[in-house]
């Protein structure tokens, strides 16, 4: 441990550098080496805390401050009634959902869900007569048909990343492997509902991997939504 000091310019200086005036410094024991501007210090990281998220977007006049200052009542100043706790929560959820409803990705996800509804119905109807392995095999031809349609429509792009293509290839292999494992599990003769219930929880694996590897962040409402999704998938797959 060495000694250092905080100058009036907010800079740490070690004891070995030029001696500062005693009037504008506070003597503190700090590790060497130092001439680090305080603005470069990450106090949250040093303390092992997650950095605070700052919302620097301009706010509407009627929107209450995220960090209210003590002694100030912006609503009273503006002649507005202060919102109740319920009112404070509702706009946040409504605004967030409203924003998502205007995004393309949400509607693509919903359309994807509807396609898999069709997948589930056709699986149920087809598997009355066709055993699972044959079903998977014939179904692959339908999948291939969509692929051929896409190949026909797609113009080759030289800029396509090899790594991206590799990831896509792995995703296809995993997709098929998951299906084969599912049919294999059914063939053991164990309770089909239990097998379906276990495998239907796959989005939770995706969430864990996405948070761990892709650094995706979910807000509290989305975490709560995931819990409801687990409950829904478990209930509906039984």
């Amino acid at each position, binding site marked *: 441990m060495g000694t250092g000091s905080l100058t009036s310019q907010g800079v740490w200086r070690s004891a070995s550098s030029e001696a500062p005036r005693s009037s504008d410094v506070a003597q503190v024991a700090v590790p060497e080496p130092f001439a680090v501007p305080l603005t470069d210090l990450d106090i949250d990281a040093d303390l092992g805390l997650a950095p605070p998220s700052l919302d620097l977007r301009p706010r509407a006049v009627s929107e209450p401050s995220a960090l209210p200052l003590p002694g100030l009542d912006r609503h009273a100043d503006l002649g507005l009634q202060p919102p109740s706790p319920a009112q404070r929560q509702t706009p946040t959820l409504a605004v967030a959902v409203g924003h998502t409803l205007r995004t393309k990705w949400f509607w693509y996800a919903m359309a994807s869900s509807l396609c898999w509804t069709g997948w589930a119905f056709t699986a149920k109807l087809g598997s009355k007569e066709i055993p699972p392995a044959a079903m998977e095999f014939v179904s692959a031809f339908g999948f291939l048909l969509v692929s051929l349609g896409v190949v026909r429509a797609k113009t080759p792009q030289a800029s396509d990343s090899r790594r991206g293509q590799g990831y896509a290839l792995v995703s296809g292999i995993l997709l098929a492997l998951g299906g084969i494992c599912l049919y294999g599990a059914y063939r053991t003769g164990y309770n089909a509902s239990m097998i379906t219930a276990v495998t239907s929880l796959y989005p939770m694996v*995706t969430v864990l991997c996405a948070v761990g590897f892709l650094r995706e962040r979910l807000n509290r409402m989305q975490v709560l939504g995931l819990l409801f999704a687990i409950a829904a998938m478990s209930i509906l797959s039984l």
Partner: protein
Amino acid sequence: MNASLWLVLAILGLFSWGGVGVFQKMSVDRVGVRTAFVWASAGFMLLQTLVIPSVATLNYSPKSLFCAALNGVCNGLGILLLLAAMRHGGKASIVESLAALYPVFVVMLSPALLRERLSGFHLVGIGCAVLACILLSAESPASS
């Protein structure tokens, strides 16, 4: 033997499908939806040789075979749209979770299409799915 085999296979299936979304997202971050889909199809077809049925598939009725082929078309379109959702900024964790709620549509349409009856248990599941859908959609504008 079978008692543990089903669990091993189910968990392997769980992790395989769980990994699909992550690889799809990593893929569409780098290539277009169609390219990603074509390569995913190649990977998918690669493993189909493992499930070549022992009985000739043409022994089944045309209606069942049509359903099986349509099943593949629906699956393919589902994957294609999922890739598009991720390409347009959807998070893998949210898009996969939303799309995986499809059983709620199945349960809701079953009375009309399959003449099945809804139980109270199903209604609870539907309620949970609707709540899940609303809460999962609560994406803050800054993070999407």
